[in-house]
């Protein structure tokens, strides 16, 4: 513990150098903008900014990209509260009470509590990260290929279960992502696979193209499909002096913030779109424990404080599996993993011991970033909110231009742009069919890792699949996976029986 704190202090010294501080501020500002602008979530935002980090060292790059991720959680609440339009998916639930508060002329306190909650959740969760990550990394050193393979299968199934919608649909998206991940050179033998003689495909499908295409361009196309008149938006920007919450608001919010921190922190440690799940869980719990549950849906400030705290806490704790095990449990950490690999950093159990300066500097920068975001989001919220005055019919072409330019700059290749456009059409079609893009992206990023872990496991065991059941951690993960697969079936069967019983009762 003492050693961790000493290393953290060293991390602060590096994070506070002018260059790293600048990238932390840039990440925080861009993240806030990404969160505020509907149609540009953290996945597309980070993917777009990856090329801009090529000239930086890995630490500065990760400081900036991480800043975009948690910055988006701060910014996402702004449009939810002011316009009833979530800036990103983790702010959907904030619309319910946040927008009601705005309609009652209390947009200022709602925005302030959202920013304060994000700060509280973020900073406490980083402390949890400092406490948990080093011992967990030591434990993860005992993981071999079978454990990693089982963990990835577990992550896929849990993510598919909690993404919302059909489990089968989400699992299909995981498999499609895994298939995309097999394109290129075989990670074990080096043989070409599904390249059809194309040199471009030898390097595999560019994950940035898939991320920007499916998420960024897919969202743009959904907007482009609407008639021009439907793109008009109206926003009322609050004045600075209206931003301060009352003592009563603060008193009502403190409990919600602390509960939101706990919920968010633990949600970040399980596979899935952690910030989104955390907001729903926090909202449900706040409504249950509230002395005024009837106020929920009518402008209860706890309905803003709880979810907004939870999504930021989940964002920070989601870095634990990424850094410690090297396996992202959600789509945004998956993008960050891709960015880290581009910069020559392989996250995993050895990261903290082999690259302590990177790990502790990034952790320290998260504290600094959260503080910067609190400063940015309290007095400057009216300034950011003014961005929303730019009409969507101008904003969407600008984002498209940014997508095309950013995509080209990854490899200086026009083929990447075509790949992005193809993925954009795919993303649009998938949305029309109500399929989630997140499992696809996770499958694509983790596919090669899963294949290597699987093939190494069966080679170690001379083709005996029993190796996955003979090792306790692997067995536990597979049993948990089975439980997640069986549970929806049992629930479905139970509901069907109950439905049939009710129909019988009614017919009598």
């Amino acid at each position: 513990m003492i050693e961790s704190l000493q290393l953290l202090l060293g991390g602060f010294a590096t994070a506070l150098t002018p260059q790293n501080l600048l990238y932390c501020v840039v990440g925080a500002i861009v993240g806030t903008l990404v969160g505020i602008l509907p149609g540009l979530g953290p996945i597309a935002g980070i993917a777009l900014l990856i090329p801009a980090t090529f000239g930086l060292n890995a630490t500065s790059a990760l400081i900036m990209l991480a800043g975009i991720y948690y910055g988006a959680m701060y910014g996402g609440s702004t449009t939810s509260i002011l316009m009833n339009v979530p800036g990103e998916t983790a702010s959907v639930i904030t619309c319910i009470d946040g927008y009601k508060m705005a309609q009652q002329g209390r947009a200022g306190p709602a925005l302030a509590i959202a920013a304060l909650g994000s700060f509280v959740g973020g900073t406490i969760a980083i402390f949890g990260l400092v406490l948990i990550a080093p011992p967990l990394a030591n434990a993860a050193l005992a993981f071999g290929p079978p454990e990693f393979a089982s963990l990835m299968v577990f992550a896929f199934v849990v993510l598919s279960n909690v993404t919302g919608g059909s489990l089968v649909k989400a699992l299909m998206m995981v498999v499609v992502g895994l298939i995309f991940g097999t394109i290129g050179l075989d990670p074990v033998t080096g043989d070409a696979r599904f390249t059809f003689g194309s040199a471009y495909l030898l390097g595999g499908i560019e994950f940035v193209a898939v991320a920007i295409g499916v998420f960024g361009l897919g969202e743009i196309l959904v907007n482009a499909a609407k008639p021009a008149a439907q793109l008009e938006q109206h926003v009322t920007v609050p004045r600075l002096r209206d931003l301060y919450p009352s003592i009563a608001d603060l008193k009502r919010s403190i409990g919600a913030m602390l509960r939101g921190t706990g919920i968010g922190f633990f949600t970040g440690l399980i596979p899935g779109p952690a910030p989104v799940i955390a907001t729903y869980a926090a909202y449900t719990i706040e409504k249950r424990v509230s002395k005024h549950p009837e106020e929920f849906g009518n402008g209860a400030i706890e309905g803003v404080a709880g979810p907004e705290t939870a999504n930021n806490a989940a964002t920070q704790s989601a870095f634990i599996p990424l850094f410690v095990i090297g396996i992202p449990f959600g789509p945004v950490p998956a993008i960050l993993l891709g960015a880290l690999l581009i910069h020559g950093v392989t996250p995993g159990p050895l990261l903290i011991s082999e690259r302590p300066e990177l790990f502790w500097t990034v952790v320290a920068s998260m504290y600094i970033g959260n503080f910067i975001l609190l400063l940015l989001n309290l007095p400057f919220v009216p300034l950011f909110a003014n961005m929303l005055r730019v009409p969507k019919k101008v904003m969407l072409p600008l984002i498209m231009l940014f997508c095309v330019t950013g995509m080209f700059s990854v490899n200086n290749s026009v083929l990447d742009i075509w790949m992005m456009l193809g993925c954009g059409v795919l993303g649009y079609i998938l949305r029309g069919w109500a399929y989630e893009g997140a499992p696809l992206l996770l499958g694509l990023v983790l596919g090669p890792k899963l294949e290597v872990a699987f093939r190494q496991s069966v080679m170690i065991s001379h083709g005996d699949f029993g190796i996955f059941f003979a090792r306790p951690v692997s067995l536990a993960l597979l049993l948990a996976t089975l439980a997640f697969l069986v549970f929806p079936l049992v629930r479905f069967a139970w509901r069907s029986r109950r439905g049939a019983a009710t129909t019988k009762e009614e017919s009598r």
Partner: protein
Amino acid sequence: MTSAIALFLFGGLTAALSLQLPIGTLRAPGTGLFPLALGVMLMALAAAHAVQLHLSRSKAPGEPAAKKASNGATARVALFMAVVALATALLQVIGYVASAFLLMLGLLRVFRVKWSTATLVAALAAAASHLLFVLWLKIPMPPGPLGF
């Protein structure tokens, strides 16, 4: 049902192409084994989804299978993509600045922005993106016949 059929076919295609690669054995898996397993898995999941859809439809036959796209949505998306595709195709021919101008102008017109406003915004955006990406971030965007 369309999605289930499309994904079933995609799984089948993956499996068929995998069979043309060395499959190896379980002791020494070849290049094709993993994608073959994935292709078969996708086919099985797509079939399960199709059955699920069939059962839910037979329970509620009056319900439409999916929301129909609003009038003209496909045409608007196609027009949007056509503009982006044209600008991408011309990127290395006319250069970044001209291509960015074309992209912006075309998309603004897709959204029915007035010609004068669209031209002004497109020119400003192309100039600003040249300053930001080419001159400041030093990204080697393709130059046009005039050198930018």
